[in-house]
């Protein structure tokens, strides 16, 4: 080869030329060649070769390869180079030992001109197939790597179809082995190149920026700074050298693709792995990004679990890992470190690859927003979103939304105005149950996609379901409605919730009216939507129009037979129509389908109490406790519990306020919730008592409180007040200051006829939650018994204002009026009570939690 000759002569000029060749300074090579010629004229042949080479390479650097239209121009532009190289071929070339290189370069030249057959001929002349592995100089290494690459590409482009199947297979094998050799040699070349150039220039691979801002600021432990490496004159050439060249890059990426094309999926995967296992170089950064992404793609798209084989386990597994470059001279060096992570199955490998790809892609993203960088920015953005999309696909299945969250959060830095990233971020936050954060992101997403109703609907749902900001949710629903008719249902739900929450009669009536209109329209829009029918039915139920409510719940059930909230509402509607036994039947049937549904169990227990069957009710409640343990205990011990069927449980009046996973503390969240006073009280209590916060999210514990209190109620019915007190004690261990606990304590005192204590308990309950009508009514009744009818009247009137449809309040009010001697008013009250009683459900309709599925 050329260099052997050089080394024997060892003139200064030749050494210089060699170094210029390996660094790609072609103009300098041409200049030096003149010197060489003048120095020793017998080097004519060598000089021809060098000039030809330099012409060829510099032409290819300036003109892009491959494009077909360029072939004509390339022929013209390269004619000079071809002449020189042909000159170098003759006998003197043989003698000088450069004929082989000349043939190889000629083949490259032919390839650049689109002459694939002549190119292949040149390779035959060069006897490329019979080369022995030995140490090579940098330049020779590159020539050789490119030669294999070009040969592979030529074989691929070859137009003549092979005559037989056998021939085709033979050609495929040759092509594949060319690409494989090319990729091995190419990587080796780049590694060698790094070593050689690394010794001269600085070894900082991430350098390259110029803006000197250096705003170092403390943030946790690390500070960020825009590095200010000097953009010296060398940087420009350095930049060029970092590229490996289109031919090599194509060959590296082409190798596995060709393998897949010929149906050798496993070999393709293995090829990717070998390339990724090679030690990275400065030039391979972007290539590695492509390769990691592509391997992940292949694993996700084409390899299902059963045919997967972990990397580097087959055949020479251990030795390829450790042996490295020891024996084979033409193989790239591999990563080797102790305690390497080596994937054992498909998921591990895919996620690992994507994490690496993400780190690589994120690093190259462009933050500059000015227009001249637009193309670069979009390219980098495309790369990084491709990785995010794959990461999403690979991780969501395993419930790793938290990981996605973090990725998207980092992505915001360079995703100004990128609607896809923002939307995905919002969705991932919602999926991770970070409600208020999700809402903020969705707001941005709403802005970025002005025609898409989805973010509006999601925001609206968040407000209704988790953040308890119904008014805001209604706003979003109305925005969604402007974009699409599906918003109608959400407008209806919002109005309904507003109606339930408002205390002023006029407000309430107005909201009810709007809700009814909206829901009717929602049903008109989509006649097959069980949810719309359900809410319409609920709306009629709230308006005390039971026949309509029953009709619509039947529609809803016809559209979806197995829908727990529908069945729940249906049962309540039956109790409101004086058909409690049928209702119990419905609930029992429903429980066959949803055995762990605490809601339905709760209704069942109440129905059994209502039917004076306290013993069975006791069994039901005990079953509820067992179910609670089964469903939630794993969750509370910190383990991510994935396969419970029922995530929702009993979720009475206010308990939805603690569904936010963000708020592990009792005190931090739920500012929006109903009872600020409760909040304040609990703070006071925490300083006083030995109350300790239970671990885990709050909701399950609130559910347990509900169950204990229900159990206490049942015990009172079977006349065991001590057991009831024990239950209350259990409940107050969890959270001492719930108004419901205070109310229940009052009930026990009433049972024991300890009126003063009962009054105090009820007063506490009302202080904690002034809208708790049951406590208000009980307080009124207690006042009456204690001989304070005026106070009783006040309390009961308040209660009646809040809940005008409750017959018990009116009955109690009647008795109070009677004792005050106002018989007309008393009669009115009793009449109202009588009128309401038949249509009063066992539990209020509002006890069914919001549902969106």
């Amino acid at each position, binding site marked *: 080869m050329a260099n052997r000759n050089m080394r024997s002569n060892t003139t200064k000029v030749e050494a210089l030329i060699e170094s210029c060749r390996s660094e790609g300074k072609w103009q300098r090579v041409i200049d030096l060649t003149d010197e060489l010629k003048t120095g020793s004229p017998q080097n004519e042949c060598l000089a021809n070769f060098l000039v030809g080479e330099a012409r060829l390479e510099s032409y290819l650097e300036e003109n892009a390869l491959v494009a077909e239209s360029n072939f004509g121009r390339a022929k013209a532009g390269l004619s000079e180079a071809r002449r020189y190289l042909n000159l170098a071929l003759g006998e003197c070339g043989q003698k000088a030992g450069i004929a082989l290189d000349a043939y190889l370069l000629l083949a490259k030249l032919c390839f650049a001109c689109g002459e694939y057959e002549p190119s292949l001929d040149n390779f035959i002349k060069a006897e490329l197939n019979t080369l022995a592995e030995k140490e090579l100089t940098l330049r020779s290494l590159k020539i050789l790597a490119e030669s294999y690459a070009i040969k592979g590409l030529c074989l691929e482009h070859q137009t003549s179809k092979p005559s037989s199947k056998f021939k085709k297979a033979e050609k495929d094998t040759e092509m594949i082995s060319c690409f494989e050799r090319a990729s091995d040699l190419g990587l080796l070349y780049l590694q060698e190149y790094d070593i050689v150039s690394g010794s001269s220039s600085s070894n900082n691979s991430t350098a390259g920026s110029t803006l000197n801002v250096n705003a170092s600021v403390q943030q946790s432990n690390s500070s960020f700074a825009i590095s200010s490496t000097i953009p010296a004159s060398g940087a420009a050439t350095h930049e060029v050298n970092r590229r490996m060249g289109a031919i090599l890059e194509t060959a590296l990426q082409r190798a596995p*693709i060709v393998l897949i094309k010929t149906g050798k999926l496993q070999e393709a995967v293995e090829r990717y792995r070998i390339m990724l296992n090679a030690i990275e170089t400065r030039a391979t950064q972007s290539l590695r990004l492509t390769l990691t992404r592509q391997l992940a793609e292949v694993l996700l798209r084409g390899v299902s679990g059963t045919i997967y084989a972990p990397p580097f386990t087959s055949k020479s597994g251990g030795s390829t890992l450790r042996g490295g470059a020891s024996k084979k001279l033409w193989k790239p060096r591999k990563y080797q470190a102790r305690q390497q992570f080596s994937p054992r199955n498909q998921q591990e490998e895919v996620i690992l690859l994507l994490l690496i790809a993400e780190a690589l892609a994120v690093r190259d993203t462009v933050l500059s927003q000015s227009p001249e960088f637009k193309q670069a920015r979009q390219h980098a953005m495309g790369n990084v979103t491709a990785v995010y999309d794959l990461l999403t696909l690979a991780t969501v299945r395993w419930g790793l939304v938290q990981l996605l969250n973090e990725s998207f959060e980092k992505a915001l830095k360079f995703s100004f105005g990128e609607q896809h990233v923002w939307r995905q971020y919002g969705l991932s936050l919602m999926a991770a149950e970070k409600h208020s954060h999700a809402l903020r992101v969705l707001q941005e997403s709403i802005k970025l996609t002005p025609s898409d109703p989805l973010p509006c609907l999601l925001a609206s749902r968040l407000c209704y379901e988790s953040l308890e900001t119904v008014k805001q949710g209604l706003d979003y629903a109305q925005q969604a409605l402007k974009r699409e008719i599906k918003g109608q249902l959400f407008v209806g739900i919002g109005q309904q919730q507003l109606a339930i929450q408002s205390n002023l009669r006029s407000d309430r009536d107005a909201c009810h009216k709007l809700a009814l209109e909206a829901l009717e329209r929602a049903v008109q829009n989509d006649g097959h939507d069980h949810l719309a029918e359900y809410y319409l039915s609920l709306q009629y139920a709230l308006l005390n129009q039971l026949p309509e409510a029953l009709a619509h719940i039947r529609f809803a059930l016809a559209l979806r037979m197995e829908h727990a909230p529908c069945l729940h509402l249906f049962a309540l509607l039956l109790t409101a129509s004086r058909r409690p036994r049928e209702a119990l039947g419905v609930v029992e049937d429903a429980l066959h389908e*949803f055995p762990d549904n605490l809601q339905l169990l709760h209704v069942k227990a109440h129905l059994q109490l209502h039917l004076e069957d306290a013993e069975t009710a006791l069994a039901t409640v005990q079953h509820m406790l067992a179910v609670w343990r089964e469903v939630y205990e794993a969750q509370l011990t910190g383990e991510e519990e994935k396969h419970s069927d029922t995530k929702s449980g009993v979720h009475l009046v206010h308990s939805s306020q603690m569904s936010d996973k963000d708020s592990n503390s009792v005190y931090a969240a739920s500012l929006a919730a109903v009872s600020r006073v409760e909040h304040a009280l609990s703070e006071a209590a925490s300083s006083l008592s030995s109350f300790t916060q239970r671990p885990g999210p709050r909701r399950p514990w609130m559910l347990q409180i509900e169950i204990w209190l229900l159990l206490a109620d049942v015990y009172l019915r079977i006349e065991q007040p001590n057991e009831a007190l024990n239950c209350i004690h259990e409940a107050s261990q969890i959270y001492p200051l719930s108004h419901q606990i205070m109310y229940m304590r009052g009930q026990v005192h009433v049972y024991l006829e300890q009126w003063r204590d009962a009054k105090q308990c009820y007063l506490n309950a009302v202080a904690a939650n002034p809208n708790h009508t049951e406590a208000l009514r009980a307080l009124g009744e207690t006042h009456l018994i204690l001989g304070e009818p005026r106070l009783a009247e006040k309390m009961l009137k308040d209660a009646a204002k809040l809940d005008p449809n409750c017959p018990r309040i009116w009955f109690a009010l009647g008795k109070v009026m009677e004792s005050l001697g106002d018989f007309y008013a008393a009669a009115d009250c009793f009449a109202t009570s009588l009128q309401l009683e038949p249509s009063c459900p066992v539990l209020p309709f509002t006890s069914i939690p919001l549902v969106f599925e």
Partner: protein
Amino acid sequence: MAELVRDWLADYQRTRGQPAESEAFVVEHETDPEIAEAIFTIFNERQRNEDLVHDICQQLLCFYRSPEVTLHKFPLQFIPVLIYTYLHAVSAGDKKASRGVETLLICIYNGEVSTDDGGQKVVVFRMPILAQTSVYHEMKNLPLTDLRRWEENCNRELKWGPHQRVETVNAQNRMRILTTLLFCYNQHVSQTQKSSLLHLCRVTSQLVNQGFTTKSGHGHRMSYGSDPATGATFPKPSSPRIPLSSSFLIELVHAIYFAMFNGYGTIAIQTLDDIHNRATYEMYTELILVTSAVRNSLHANPSGQPNDGPMGLSVALTPATNTVTTSVSKSMITNASFRTKKLPDDIPIQVQDLTMQQNPQQLASVIEEAEPGAKESPSTKESSGTRERQGNRRKPPQRKFDKHTQRNSLLQLQSELNSNSNAEQPPPPSDMLPMQTLSLINENGSNSFSIDSDLNDGLGVVAGSVALPSINSNTNSVTSSEVLTKSFDSSIELAPLGHSNSNGGKLAEHGLVE
């Protein structure tokens, strides 16, 4: 078709119990692609061949239980179509008709969640993290922030299973069982016949679209008012929507994704759109995440289209040299321009500063007592002062200094506002005020670390001293300005880059807190 299947059924019945013949059957079965096709057809036209469906299910069950591996795997390719048949029947309230299919599904489920020796099958994998070197990367060339990410998840394991065996299917466990079955189908999907992928796509579209396309059935709705009590006569819609869970559909997306890149690109993309529409209708956030990720990767993306090449892969050359000239790229700021740097060791000092500020004895409010008229809130002064000093110690470049002055001016603005509002207040009626101020500030200072505690304190203060509104507003503003400075500090690295967006967001957030 029916003939073919009948022969197939009969053949197998005949060969049972005769080892020689059954082996021949197995071999023949393996090489015959038509029978699967015929079975798919029968399922598509199941109304006409109900008894045949039942027989097929029984035979598939026998296959599944057979020790022959090829026979054992054979039924797995029908899982999607079986699921559709079953769910269709269930949603129409016709559970009896689907008994055969249900039994088959339960048996396959129980088989798939168990190991060969009767235990429960669990798929475990370790969560890979970048902090540990792997066969694909080394530490030195990746940014530190990425390396440290999820470090705490080292050795965390993710699991599929164990799954309980089931005896009956009800509404509560149905979706879970079917999701598990689909997961198993996905594990085997690359070994099934390619043609079964076509049926997968078709069946999936039917599954998610049923009940959505037909816009009939409004007429009878108008009459409900007249006779609502006997509304039970309401005619059922012929094919109601099929309830589907999010995780079930996610498994389906995985299956469809496979089909998309293995020969059925066009129809699979269509099916994916169907799933996406269903996802947005149901508002399943996780599912929408996945479907929009896949859809996004399909247009204008380096990931490539299904018909770009094998598995959508193609050569993607780095455009750097051709498009962006080096001179331009020099001034371009990329994410790599940010370098993580170890801070000098003065961090603990800074924390100390803050704690000192908390310390009641050192509190600058003593000065306040000396000159009660001073309007600038003491802890603001203190905090900005300390920060200034730190800044000097680290010799900040000009830009950073600008930032400081800007921040200070902001603070000044705020304190001016405060002082204005204070000035308008009538002078305090008693000598109590300075003392109270002191105590309030003490309380505040001791807690001024987190926003939460600030708020709580604030609340407490509101409750405690309604009579002194001016002081309240004063202390509150102190804490909020404190927060303001903090937010500036933590987000300052973004500020020079025109990303006032995120900054503004943070500020707005704090503004809201305030």
